[in-house]
């Protein structure tokens, strides 16, 4: 069973959930704030000790007022890995988390052994506009994020309406995402110029039908990060880990245990 505790990271109270056994794996969550233990975390935890922190401003993690951009999030994980006395760990980052993972691997290459980017934000690709994430209408948001807007897993991923008990946490997650991703919209204009500094083996997973961050973003990252391999999933859109949890976890595990 995963357990959740709160640790102090350079003055920021940070929620950290841990589960499973085996070598450590740092999972960096998306703007949706999947800080509860999800089926795909469970899949990964069969082979790894999954570390699932909540970014500042998400769930019970504090310190958002100190955060201006995703680089500040990456510095937060520099601090966290030091606090946990970890380095050279695999990092799996989904969307906002993938962006954070790239920035972390650029800032402190020694901390990241391998990088898995899943429908990752972080760059802007001309001719491939991103969707509008900051809309109030939850039905429209479901249609934006999922291949099938009636997929029952949506209930796990986001509130269904304003009466949902998770709505406050959801609004807080939106606020935190806006803090770092409103403008420039879901990307760091300087990141592309730094991608060649990512030294670790990198795998890029993408849902073919992603309307929030379309596939050309994945192709762009694969072309800029040395040796990166792109794997496209036909059964999903942006919410790949929710939509295809077993395939997702299998692809992550295969990449992380393979020799490089």
């Amino acid at each position: 069973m995963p357990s959740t505790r709160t640790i102090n990271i350079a003055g920021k109270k940070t929620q950290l959930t841990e589960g499973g056994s085996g070598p450590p794996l740092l999972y960096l969550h998306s703007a949706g704030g999947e800080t509860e233990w999800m089926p795909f975390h469970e899949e990964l935890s069969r082979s790894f000790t999954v570390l699932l922190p909540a970014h500042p401003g998400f769930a019970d993690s504090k310190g958002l007022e100190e955060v201006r951009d995703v680089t500040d999030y990456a510095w937060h994980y520099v601090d966290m890995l030091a606090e946990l006395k970890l380095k050279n760990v695999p990092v799996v980052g989904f969307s906002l988390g993938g962006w954070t993972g790239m920035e972390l691997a650029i800032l402190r290459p020694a901390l990241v052994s391998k990088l898995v980017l899943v429908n990752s934000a972080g760059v802007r690709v001309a001719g491939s506009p991103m969707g509008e994430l900051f809309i109030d209408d939850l039905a429209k948001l479901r249609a934006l994020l999922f291949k099938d807007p009636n997929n029952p897993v949506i209930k796990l991923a986001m509130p269904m309406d304003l009466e949902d008990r998770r709505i406050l946490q959801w609004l807080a997650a939106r606020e935190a995402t806006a803090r770092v991703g409103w403008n420039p919209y879901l990307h760091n204009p300087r990141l592309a110029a730094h991608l060649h500094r990512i030294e670790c083996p990198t795998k890029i997973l993408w849902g073919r039908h992603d309307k929030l961050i379309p596939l050309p973003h994945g192709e762009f990252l694969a072309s800029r990060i040395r040796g990166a391999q792109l794997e496209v999933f036909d059964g999903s859109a942006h919410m790949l880990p929710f939509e295809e949890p077993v395939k997702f976890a299998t692809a992550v595990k295969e990449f992380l245990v393979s020799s490089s």
Partner: protein
Amino acid sequence: MKCFAFHLMPWDRLPADFGEKYESAWTWLPNSLYDPKHGHTLYNRFLDELCLADELGFDGVCVNEHHQNAYGTMPSPNLMGSILARQTKRCKIAVIGNALPLYNPPTRVAEEFAMIDVISGGRLIAGLVVGGGPEYYSFSMNPTHARAMYNEALDLVVRAWTEPGPFEHYGEYWKLKYVNPWPRPLQQPHPPIWIPGAGSKETIEFVAQRRYAYMGIPYFHVDFFQRNFDMFRDCCQKNGYECDPEQLGWLCPIYVAETDAQAWEEYEHHFMYFAQQLLKGLVVLPPGYTSARSLIGIHSAMKQFLINVKTRKEIEDGAYAIVGSPETVRDKLAHYAKRLGVGNLLGLFQIGTLPAELTKKNLTIFAQEVMPALQKLDTRIGVAV
């Protein structure tokens, strides 16, 4: 009580299929729907209506700032304010307001407002506002910084008006080595400051604390205004003084005609165009613009918001608009103004598609047969009519 004529300068020609085809009259409404030739006629007509209000003896006229929308085509109220500074002779010119975080640096607001004040001979009322939700999309301004930017900008503007320059300002959002605006305002120490609010407790407390004036943002049920204004009076008391009714304003759509029946006949479909088309998409709640708890609160207050109103009875029960003969309108406005304890009535006399002739008639009958009684009204709470 003082009577103001508020103009939104709305777009009156949305396509017939707007309801089905477009999600919002804001931000994303394609500007190919804007026709500059018709705009030329409209702007000039709307300015004429405000000049007429001055001639008819209104205490003031009001303009406001919105961007990329059909609801109010006034991205720069200061341009309109400066025209009115020349073309009106005696009324106050209330710009409600400039959306401070959108000005870079915000000392631009101090300068432009000072210009209007000086040109008009000291008739400016300076509205300073955070800006509506849609503006944060239109300008790609980060809404999670909205309040902090607003607070810094407001302090800077007031300082720029009152403290001899040049001085330095090194804030969180703006770093200015020389703050030294020319001109300075004619009204000393500075023009009256009005701050519009939609009911957030933080704004009410802030305005009461500083002894500025709080303007109730429109289109809620009258009970919602009542709660907010009561809260404002309590806050004034907590700060050690009695609220002056002049510190409160109530914005209300008003239509007067010869009889009750005729007023509704002439007005109702124009009002519903406004409620159902122009308001569509007005309330978007960008993340972090206000606290998550307040966002939930505003969502629930939306049940008492004009966009959800369907019938004439609902309009009347909630005082979403005051419509009728001069006698009806006079009685109702006096009743509500007393009940709310507001010293400023901000009437919307033109709304959406309401044509020029009816707007002129509305303003004229109001000024001649309704306004004199209201201007004599003492709206302090507890003072009998």
